[in-house]
């Protein structure tokens, strides 16, 4: 049953060195504030799982928190490369990381299978691709009725899932709205889950088929206004595309990256994210 905690207490209590962690949010609702807290608490040897590593994993990888990355599209969307990730893969800085690479369809199905309590996902995929040659976690089975060859990948069941959502009510039920990605699957498939929210309200005021995570599927809820910045929270603030573009220059250079992280992550706390709900903020970095 969901407990309301501070962000530092939630990460402290639920995330251990060496854990497999999923921080999800498909462009929308990426849990940046929680990612920064993981960096501040200096977690290491994490296996990071996420369809689109995005800036959040670029930061974690660049700060040396990761030993492995499982992903399906690693770029800065619409901008270019994730330079910290490339530096780790291509040059082993600050440490080399193992990668397990999939397609989006495979990852989406693997999250679905994780939520569904199945050991593996079965789908029509990877036909003709070289990916199965470099990833032993892609296998093929045959439909027992038609004989058709179908792809299979292991379900994703993280030690900890971390997601950001719009609202929680005071009982700890959470509403996710808009582009909902694989967040529900990430949470239902994980052993433990932490949800950061824009606000805690009396009444979620939902429609009959809204995407709800009941309180009893969550371990910790943390109110972090602005906690998805520079990603966005529909209904609260927009995606800060200027920041995504600016990140390209920040992340190209190891020193600039490190001093940026010191100033904007290590030396501050999650309370700075509240400022990010102001649309004027951060256009100038």
């Amino acid at each position, binding site marked *: 049953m969901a407990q309301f905690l501070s962000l530092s207490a939630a990460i402290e209590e639920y995330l251990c060195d060496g854990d497999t962690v999923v921080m999800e949010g498909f462009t929308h609702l990426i849990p940046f504030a929680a990612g920064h807290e993981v960096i501040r608490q200096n977690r290491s040897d994490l296996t990071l799982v996420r369809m689109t590593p995005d800036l959040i994993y670029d930061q974690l990888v660049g700060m040396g928190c990761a030993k492995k990355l499982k992903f399906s599209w690693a770029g800065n969307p619409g901008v270019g490369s994730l330079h910290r990730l490339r530096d780790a893969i291509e040059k082993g800085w600050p440490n080399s990381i193992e990668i397990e690479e999939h397609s989006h369809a495979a990852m989406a199905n693997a999250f679905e299978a994780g939520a569904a309590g199945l050991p593996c996902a079965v789908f029509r995929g990877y036909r003709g691709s*070289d990916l199965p040659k470099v990833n032993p976690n892609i296998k093929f089975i045959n439909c027992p009725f038609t004989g058709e060859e179908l792809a299979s990948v292991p379900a994703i069941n993280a030690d900890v899932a971390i997601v950001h959502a719009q609202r929680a009510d005071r009982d700890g039920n959470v509403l996710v709205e808009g582009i909902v990605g694989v967040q529900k699957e990430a949470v239902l498939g994980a052993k433990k889950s932490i949800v950061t929210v824009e606000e805690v309200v009396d009444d979620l005021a939902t429609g009959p088929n809204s*995407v709800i995570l009941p309180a009893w599927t969550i371990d910790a809820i943390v109110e972090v206004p602005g906690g998805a910045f520079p990603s966005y929270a529909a209904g609260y603030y*927009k995606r800060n595309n200027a920041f995504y573009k600016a990140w390209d220059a920040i992340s190209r250079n190891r020193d600039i990256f490190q001093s940026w992280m010191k100033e904007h992550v290590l030396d501050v706390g999650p309370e700075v994210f509240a400022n990010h709900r102001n649309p004027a903020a951060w256009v100038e970095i």
Partner: protein
Amino acid sequence: MWGRKSLQTIEIRRLGWRFKMRYSRNEMMTIAAARALGNDDVCFVGIGLPSAAANLARSIHAPDITLIYESGTIGARPDVLPLSIGDSELCETARTTVAVPEMFRYWLQGGRISVGFLSAAQLDRFGNLNTTVIGPYENPKVRLPGSGGATEMATSCGEIFIVMRQSTRSFVEKLDFMTSLGHGTGGDDRARRGINTKGPTLVVTDFCVMKPDPKTKELTVVSLHPGVSREDVVNNTGWDIRFNNNPSETSPPKEEELAILRALNERTALAHGGSN
């Protein structure tokens, strides 16, 4: 990025006067791709050129086209081009937004998509695509973003349109990595693999338009953009590129097409709060 040399012009009449209007090959590419989309298409759209082409089609000749982004938005009608595949504009203007597993299971794998747009770092003569690595996989020279939706789009979409800038670095004799299947080894390779979708039926570059030969499936130039010579295409292709018997000239951009594309790009630049 594109030198003066690559600019072409069209003639415009206003109040009895004639003007010349310049356009870039990039614009020609986007417009040629947009023209290939129909009003009844259900189009799985990637970010960048595909998104520009799809939204241009929607603004001109295909107002009812259905645009689907892999973030889950179905029937999105963005007023500006999204920078990412999950911008709020897409969800706000969509008929509905579904979870990402549903998008890949019901809508893509379910065979609901008529056209998928793809681009790549490398393409070979059979329209196979690499978006994974340049160099060896275990020790890459350049680590690219990877598959994303492309691998399963390539086999689940009814057909694939490829839009990408042409050069000997991108149009290669041999891929470093096969991320997404085009026509494989050519001929009936797709059918022999049990795949019943068409694969790449159209490649639009900044130089020309190519289509697969009906039998061999090797990409063949069917039209050259205005001002582009055969030599330009040969010099920018990494294999011995074939031409149709009598390749036509791509119909140049219409004034309306250019105006709408530029307005879209301007709104987009403004909305994204940066230059670019």
